[in-house]
């Protein structure tokens, strides 16, 4: 099932990666990655055309091998849910492609330039992302082949109740941004689904084989790595979405500090942060000229370390600037939030303009990514050799009557 579709997705992913590189490096669209002064764009365009031609030839000459007799018993089945999920993922990829190309299309049609920045992608992709998260929760609850009403009721009851409870609780605790609220609600649905599946699986092994639940859990995963590894990937997706939704609680402050000045601001968690400027320092090190600020930080009156931010101007052997200045962001991270301090400008001898940003749940993006990688590893982990050595059941089928050939050892 879906062999042609899978190959098309693989080929499209490769070609789009090349296409993305081509339009940014060639300067077709404005990008910090463009090499507008070099002829690299033509090479990429040529390679893209060659790659399309070669992959089109390879796929078209193998269509017979990719033919599969796809059958589906019901539109409400796990197989159909896979397709719906697939559709949303492709839709998200298309919206990114479309948003990237729309300035070019608009200029060609209307003759004037436009900018398509983060607000456009947020408008288009947040609804699609939430739909994807919802389907991630619903898919595993639907039975393979055909789902009955009774099956759906039984499967959906606990996850739906959990999601509703989580939604109400998050709202009560002050999450009023709709996208964030839906993200946490759907995330709860997915997590409840995963826990329910693990719980049922472990209990089934406990009943069937009398295994203790701690033993049953790893054996359950080992027995069906694709399924339970997939659930671990889903858990990673939830964590990543929760982290993205944390952006709704981002707080930014512009502070002007002379040496010895303090400023206090409050983050989304209600903590009061005080920044004490130790003044501006200017020095040369290795191949760069550095302007830096150090800030003594306290959180709710308790010392929280020193954060430094730098502006670096790299120079060549003759002391001439090589690139535009770069910024070294001071970061103090925790699982609650990352505090970014950026030295935005210098006023006089010791005055500094700094930007303080509280970015909630940033580390959870990494955690979610690690979970997804772990799930992927579980899915890919090969079966044990002894299982593959079983070549069938011929070894136990001894003939019961005369005239039937002995298959033992065949």
């Amino acid at each position, binding site marked *: 099932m879906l062999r042609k579709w899978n190959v098309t997705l693989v080929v499209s992913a490769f070609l789009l990666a090349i296409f993305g590189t081509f339009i940014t490096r060639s300067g077709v669209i404005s990008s910090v990655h463009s090499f507008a002064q070099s002829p690299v764009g033509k090479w990429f365009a040529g390679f893209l055309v060659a790659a399309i031609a070669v992959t089109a030839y390879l796929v078209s000459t193998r269509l017979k091998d990719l033919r599969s007799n796809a*059958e589906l018993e019901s539109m409400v089945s796990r197989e159909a849910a896979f397709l719906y999920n697939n559709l949303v993922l492709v839709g998200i990829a*298309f919206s990114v492609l479309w948003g990237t190309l729309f300035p070019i299309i608009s200029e060609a049609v209307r003759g004037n*330039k436009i900018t*398509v920045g983060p607000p456009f992608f947020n408008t288009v992709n947040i609804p699609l992302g939430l739909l994807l998260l919802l389907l991630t929760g619903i898919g595993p609850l639907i039975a393979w082949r055909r789902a009955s009403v009774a099956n759906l009721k039984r499967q959906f009851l606990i996850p739906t109740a959990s999601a509703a409870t989580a939604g109400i609780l998050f709202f009560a605790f002050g999450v009023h941004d709709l996208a964030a609220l839906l993200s946490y609600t759907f995330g709860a649905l997915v997590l409840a689904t995963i826990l329910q599946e693990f719980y049922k699986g472990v209990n089934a092994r406990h009943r069937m084989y009398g295994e203790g639940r701690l033993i049953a859990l790893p054996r359950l995963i080992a027995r069906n790595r694709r399924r339970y590894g997939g659930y671990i990937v889903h858990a990673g997706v939830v964590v990543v979405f929760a982290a993205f939704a944390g952006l709704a609680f981002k707080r930014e402050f512009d502070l002007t500090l002379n040496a010895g000045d303090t400023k206090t601001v409050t983050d989304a968690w209600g903590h009061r942060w005080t920044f004490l400027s130790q003044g501006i320092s200017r020095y040369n090190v290795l191949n760069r000229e550095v302007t830096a600020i150090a800030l003594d930080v306290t959180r709710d009156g308790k010392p929280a370390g020193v954060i430094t931010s730098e502006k670096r101007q790299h120079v060549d052997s003759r002391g001439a600037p090589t690139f535009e200045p770069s910024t070294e962001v001071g970061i103090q991270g925790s699982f609650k939030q990352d505090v970014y301090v950026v030295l935005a400008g210098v006023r006089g001898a010791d005055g500094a303009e700094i930007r303080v940003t509280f970015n909630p749940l940033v580390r959870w993006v990494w955690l979610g990514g690690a979970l997804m990688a772990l799930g992927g590893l579980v899915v890919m982990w090969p079966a044990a050799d002894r299982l593959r050595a*079983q070549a069938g*059941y011929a070894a136990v089928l001894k003939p019961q009557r005369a005239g039937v050939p002995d298959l033992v050892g065949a």
Partner: protein
Amino acid sequence: MTVISRREFVLGLPIVGLVAAASPRGVLGAQAVVQTFNGPMADANEVYRPVTLPPKANASAAMTDAQRDELEHQIHCQCGCNLDVYTCRTTDFACSVSPSMHADVMGLVSGGYGAKEILAAFKAVYGEKVLMAPTKSGFNLVGYTMPFVALGAGAVIVGGLLKRWKSRVPAAGVVASHPVNATEGELAALDEAVRRDA
């Protein structure tokens, strides 16, 4: 089908790690250092154009600092950085364009103009490219709606495919049973073997 053994799989993992480690820049390092430009930055004299309007009668600023910052998030800095004015002026040390655009915003705010009027004034001077996202009108609506139209079209195609595949499933009871040339004992032994190894 080529099957990878556990031994091959485990031995292969360090190779993936070595390839990742050999990449020129660590991921964490890339996160910490923000290089805002890789080409020459536009000179303010070349790209900056003043956006001014006469102050309204009895004008007073009708916008908080937070609202002004939010407004600047919607205005595209013209220095070539692809950032909005607020982000550029608060993170880029060397940009001379965003401070000038910020000064224009401040002037318009103190002149009593609201967010929509200020955006319209910037659009009149620089064109639509000065907005971080296209306005939701005219041809731009194609931009905003196309992903959803494409998703809808995809849903129709997938629905059609699913119906076609559903029609291929034989009705219950239609599948003919094939005669089996085996004794009851053989079938029982087979059944037992299958159950034992399942």
